[in-house]
């Protein structure tokens, strides 16, 4: 019996790891929707872009001998890699907002949507043509250990991903609920015009939103590269669709909803693959999600929380 329990535990960890990546990416969709009521379809490419920047940073920095000389130095290397990749991806997000979305802010709502699809195609094809059409191996510079906990085999990579994901979410949650800028974000989300009249710099808040979302999406991309061992120009597409779904399930516009939705979708997918059928895992997961939406059209946390951010 303990073997069975161990396997269930391991499947839950598999699901949480996958869900953590979905959740990080879902936050970007929900943040932008909360502020602009816009679905940023280019967000999936932030996942890919972050992974590539992470790979190049890691490759560049690991040439410096110091970083691979000791354990703490290696940790520093990874922290730096994440910081640089998140900042660069965040800046890309801000640039995209400035040139592809801001000029269309007062256009009909379909216009920025189409613009977003265009940016997505542009970024994907740029990576395809300028980098490679093939999968590129993503090196892991530390030894991945597998721990046996109560019959379940859990790798140090999974623990790292789940813990870091939760940490990033806590930081974001605190930022939005406790800081002045966070308050400005919430105000903008409730009523953009009124917030502007009260002295909130709307453009700055929107730019900030477009920095945070892509930065988190980029981090999810690096996790994906580290966990699966390779990255590719179209790697963002499927996680993008799933994370968007996760955001909707949680109640789009609601931060905690996106986190919940991401973890839920990851768990559903893993359990469906494990206990029903690998080929039909997406069908099953999405069927359950449709049922959830029939009974709670606003998403799981969509109605109970008044604030959108």
């Amino acid at each position, binding site marked *: 019996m303990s*073997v*069975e329990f161990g*396997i269930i535990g*391991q*499947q839950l960890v*598999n*699901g949480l*790891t*996958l869900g953590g990546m979905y959740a990080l990416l879902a936050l970007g969709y929900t943040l932008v929707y909360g502020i602009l009521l816009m679905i940023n379809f280019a967000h999936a490419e932030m996942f890919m872009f972050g992974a590539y920047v992470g790979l190049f940073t890691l490759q560049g920095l690991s040439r410096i001998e110091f970083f691979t000389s000791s354990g703490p130095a290696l940790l520093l290397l990874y922290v730096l890699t994440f910081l640089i990749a998140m900042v660069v991806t965040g800046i890309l997000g801000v640039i995209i907002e400035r040139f592809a979305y801001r000029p269309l802010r007062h256009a009909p709502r379909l216009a920025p949507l189409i613009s977003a699809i265009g940016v997505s195609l542009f970024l994907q094809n740029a990576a395809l043509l300028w980098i490679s*059409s*093939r*999968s590129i*191996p993503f090196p*892991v510079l530390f030894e*991945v250990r*597998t721990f*046996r906990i109560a019959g379940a*085999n859990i*790798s140090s*990579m999974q623990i790292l991903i789940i813990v870091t994901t939760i940490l990033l979410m806590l930081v974001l949650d605190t930022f939005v609920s406790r800081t002045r800028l966070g308050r400005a974000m919430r105000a903008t989300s409730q009523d953009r015009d009124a917030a502007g009249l009260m002295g909130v710099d709307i453009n700055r808040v929107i730019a900030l939103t477009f920095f945070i979302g892509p930065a988190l999406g980029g981090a999810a991309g690096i996790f*994906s590269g580290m966990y*699966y*061992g*390779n990255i*590719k120009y179209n*790697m963002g597409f*499927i996680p993008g669709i799933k994370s968007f779904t996760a955001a909707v399930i949680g109640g789009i516009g609601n931060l905690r909803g996106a986190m919940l939705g991401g973890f839920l979708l990851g768990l559903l*997918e*893993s*359990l469906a*693959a*494990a*206990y029903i*059928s*690998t*080929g039909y*895992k997406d069908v099953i997961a999405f069927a359950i999600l449709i049922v959830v939406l029939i009974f709670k059209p606003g998403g799981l946390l969509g109605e109970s929380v008044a604030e959108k951010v």
Partner: protein
Amino acid sequence: MSVAKSKRLFAVIAMLTMLAMVVTACGGDNGADNGDGATGDLVEVKIGVSSPFTGDVAALGLGIRNGAQLAIEEVAPELEELGISLSMLAVDDAADPRTGVNAANQMVSDSAVVGIVGHLNSGVSIPASEVYNQAGVVQVSPASTNPALTLQGFENVFRVCTIDTVQGSFAAEYAYDELGLMSVAVIDDSTAYGEGLAAEFAAAFEAKGGEVVSTDKIQVKDVDFTALVTKINGASPDFIYFGGMYTEGALISKQAKEAGFEGPLMGGDGLYTQQFVDIAGAANAEGDFATSIGLPLSEQPKGQEFQAMFEERFPGETIEAYDTYGYDAAMVIIEAIKAVAADLGVDELTTVAGKQAIIEAVAATDFEGVTGAVAFDENGDTTNKAVTPYVVRDGAWISYTD
């Protein structure tokens, strides 16, 4: 904008489009004709080559093109004396059935194309073969191993590679008898190639007396197999057999080993590339097995000659799994072109009757290629049934017999 203005604009755009088409068409022809300049006297004949030149399996596809190119360049001077200007028309199929059918249509619409070397993937070769059949052009696949390809009743479809029935049962015997592995979890990637290979393997393994503990399907482009490998780990079979390409195979190997699975992963020729080891990680891939069609290059009858020729023509590039098959497939068509040119005359080559004669000449092929003796049975399958097992040792595939 007034009506007159927009009409004028339309006319300008139409003209530019036509100009662009003319320019690109010239570009294509230049590539084909260069070197002689006296095309007027020579009959222009082309061999179409289609396999993935972009995407994950591009290395294998480009290898096929390199092989075919070597064959065509080697015989071009000889054919020129016969009055034939032979060139290659290479079109990317991106390993995608739809792109592949478009590529097939593009190639057969050029009446100078008398034969096709292609495709890599069975899932692409099968739909494309219908196009070639309707156009009456011979197709020689260097690498599509699914048995169904040659069982469609098309007289124009051939292949120089060993089929999955042979490969699957070889793998089953090998695992059971040589490696002493008794139980297996079978996974396939839901493609014509992967599904076919895995089914052949599973049937042969059970016939041997082995136990198939589970069969699962995955989708191409999936990356997360942790749930699947955890489930398989729970049933603890001796090994995992995967029918599919290395992109998914490498991830399954990696995730299975990281989840604590101790047996090897085994698969077919789709895994036999260095990329498999690179993506899985050398430590995870260590001890994994693959069977691949034919003999290793070093044991192929003319392997060393091919290697010397390859290194001179493509310095710095490496020989992939199917380069010699691409070469032999092109040679099969070239031999047929020579035979028909001698029988009917060079002017008949690109006619409907000429192309039909080429199909018949290919069916009667009998020569010593790089990969061994090349001849076809009544279905169009090669009579060469060699399969070689490979294993990952110290981060690289080596022939298991070494």
